[in-house]
């Protein structure tokens, strides 16, 4: 009774009569769009190098990556969480708690010094995850509560700061260098490389994308959505713990206020890097570019060397806005 229309035998549309150069330019533009943050980073670095001759010196670049490595590691976890369609506001406080735990554990050896904060981070992630998955509470609120609680806990445990008397090997894990490249830089890059492999090449990574892309569909497709969420919050907590451990090693101290504000900065870094807050889309290269861009802000303010504290906040806010505007302007067409 019902007649359905036949399908269009889709003829490949004739390619536009454009010459090679235009096509190549188009492809270049497509790459720029896809890699907005990375492109902005490179351009900004070159411009900064022109204005401040010291900026592009290898030592300064290393300073920058070292300083950015702590934010970088938490942003890595945060990126997984955002791609999976969530948020983790607890990471900043977890770093502070991580440094404190590492400082307490350091006398018992390097393993303990790393083990304690990592385990605590995983545990915090597990609790966050359970409240979000089992009790179906909003990630924003659950992790916000964790932010408050962990910050309080860190100060209760250590006061403002705690010295690691003899950091030894633990200290060298962060402050040493391999082939002239600082350990922190190496750790940062290695972590992102491994994470990119995990995100793009494992079943878990696919599950992260699927859960963030369409949670209901993922569930219907048989993805273990709940387990993926738990694992991802645990990963985020663990990365914050790792960041805390390395920071403690770097500073030879536990500092309960360390990592304050990193929760929002890590989200900002990921978003500047093109990770969509709606979930399901994002790359680690982008996130890393976002981290380095934020690191650049501080570095450049120091290069200027005379900006008063009051103007520093204004400058970072404006830089952040401009970076987001440019990045999202570049990527707009792609997402619409």
């Amino acid at each position: 009774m019902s007649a359905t229309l036949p399908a269009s035998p889709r003829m490949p549309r004739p390619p536009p009569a454009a010459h090679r150069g235009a096509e190549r330019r188009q492809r270049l533009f497509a790459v720029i769009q896809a890699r907005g943050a990375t492109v902005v980073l490179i351009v900004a670095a070159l411009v900064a190098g022109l204005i401040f001759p010291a900026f592009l010196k290898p030592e300064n670049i290393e300073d920058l990556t070292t300083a950015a490595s702590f934010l970088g590691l938490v942003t890595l976890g945060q990126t997984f969480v955002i791609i999976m369609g969530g948020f983790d506001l607890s990471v900043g406080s977890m770093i502070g708690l991580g440094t404190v735990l590492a400082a307490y554990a350091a006398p018992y050896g390097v393993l303990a010094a790393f083990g304690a904060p990592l385990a605590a981070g995983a545990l915090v992630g597990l609790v966050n995850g359970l409240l979000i998955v089992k009790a179906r509470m909003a990630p924003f609120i659950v992790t916000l509560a964790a932010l408050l609680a962990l910050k309080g806990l860190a100060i209760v445990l250590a006061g403002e700061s705690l010295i690691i008397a003899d950091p030894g090997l633990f200290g060298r894990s962060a402050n040493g260098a391999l082939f002239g490249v600082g350990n922190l830089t190496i750790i940062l890059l290695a972590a992102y490389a491994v994470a990119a492999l995990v995100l793009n090449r494992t079943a878990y990574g696919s599950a992260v994308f699927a859960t963030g892309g369409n949670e209901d569909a993922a569930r219907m497709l048989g993805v273990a959505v709940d387990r993926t969420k738990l694992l991802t919050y645990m990963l985020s907590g663990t990365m914050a713990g790792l960041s805390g451990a390395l920071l403690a090693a770097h500073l030879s101290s536990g500092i309960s206020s360390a990592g304050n504000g990193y929760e929002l900065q890590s989200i900002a870094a990921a978003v500047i890097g093109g990770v969509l807050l709606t979930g399901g889309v994002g790359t680690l290269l982008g996130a890393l570019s976002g981290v380095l861009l934020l690191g650049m802000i501080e570095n450049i303010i120091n290069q200027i060397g005379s900006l008063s504290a009051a103007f520093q906040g204004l400058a970072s806010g404006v830089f952040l806005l401009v970076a987001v505007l440019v990045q999202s302007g570049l990527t707009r067409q792609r997402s619409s």
Partner: protein
Amino acid sequence: MVLLEARHIAKSFGHVAALRDVSLEVAAGEIVGLLGENGAGKSTLIKILTGLERHDAGDILLDGRSVAFSSPRQAQDAGIAAVYQEINLIPERSVADNLFINRAPRVAGLFINRRQMISDARALLSRYGLDVDPARTLRTLGLGTQQLVSIIRTVSLGARVVILDEPTSALSAHEVELLFGIVRTLREERVGVIYVSHRLSECYALCDRMTVLRDGVVALTEATARLPRARLIAAMLGRELVERSRSAQVVANDGAAAGSSDNVLHVEHLNWRRQVVDVGLDVRKGEVVGLAGLLGSGRTETMKAIYGAVTPDSGTVTIMQHRRHRATPARSLQDGLAFLSEDRRSEGIFSHLTVAENLSASMLRRIARWGIISRQRRDALVSEYVSRLGVKTGGSDAPISSLSGGNQQKVLIGRALSTDPSVVMLDDPTRGIDVGAKAEIHRTIADLASHGMGVLVTSSELEELVDTTDRLVVLDEGRVVDTLATAGHHADDVLAVIAGMQTAPSSAPAAEAGAP
């Protein structure tokens, strides 16, 4: 051998009893059709069978043993896979990723072998005759293609029972043929299939047996061979279908059209990207114009460009002699042009809000004075539309998500009409809608026209379009290629016209259409 059996299943959502007492069985190598009006409970039954919802009472037996799944994953592991009514894939991922989610080929047992996955995906797609690049992002494909990917994924899981909930609602005839081939292969492989559809012809073509649900109970179960169409329809509706005479309708509308030849909608040289190319068309007062074309021919985009949902690159749109600049949906509504989107879920309903809020969404300005909304006027209008359109709801304060698809659609039609438009554009208003509701919507369209409104409508079913319109504007690749009067024509004639225009060799077999 009975594979899967549901016994006396009952399920309520709050006050709404979706299923009261439903029993259903499917044997190996059997295709069972599941039919029923919108809201009869078909989707709910399927969700229960696959562990997506919990039933309140009854048993599910697999191979004679009682089972209880708490997630689709468990059901899949036990050999039951489903394609749900709404497309459920991950739009931002590639076709291959979607096909192989959870079961990608690995290297060293850990890392996904992308190259292998892509080539596996290509093999799988071509085995089922679907020609798409597996590396493409799913989102960039048409709805029909997405649906086919979803179906191919499901059948390739190697399940023993495959459930398809309205798989053809987004498919073209050619794609429907692909699907039929797939389902028949499943039957040969001794897989049990449950097939849900509102398209009776499909069910007659495919199913061995049919089960009809009505209001949450089984109204009829019968072998297809022993089931005349009339009895099937009567079972679905609980009464005989009053078929409207097409000629009467055409006469009535011709009268209206003849009385006034003024255009309520006039479109000239409309362009949008490369999907709407130099489109011109007219809708006269009291006329129903069909926008016909093959899937992907640009019908949706044409409507959206006219409406201002996308900004046309060039062209003019005149509504009631009033020429518009820079169209936006808000201005279109003000000028008397309403639009119903084909994508109900993401562009139509406000899923957390109530029926009343959904229905009144476009008439807020009308029922407000100085920005303040009059409650009484709203409630009066809402209850009027709800009752007149025959929306089945638990009350206008019920969340719209508790309504079945067809009833949600009626609410949205009510929303479009509530702006008191002089022209409405309905993009596939009967998609996923049962015969009874379909007839009501046809009646509504005719009624609107007889009262002087201009209607521009599309449908995925050509016969429906021929039957319910006065004129067809035929699109191909975004261009208007012909305009035909429908009076006295049969769908096959129109099909022949369209097919004749196709320069490509493989036009779909027109003979299949209209069977049995």
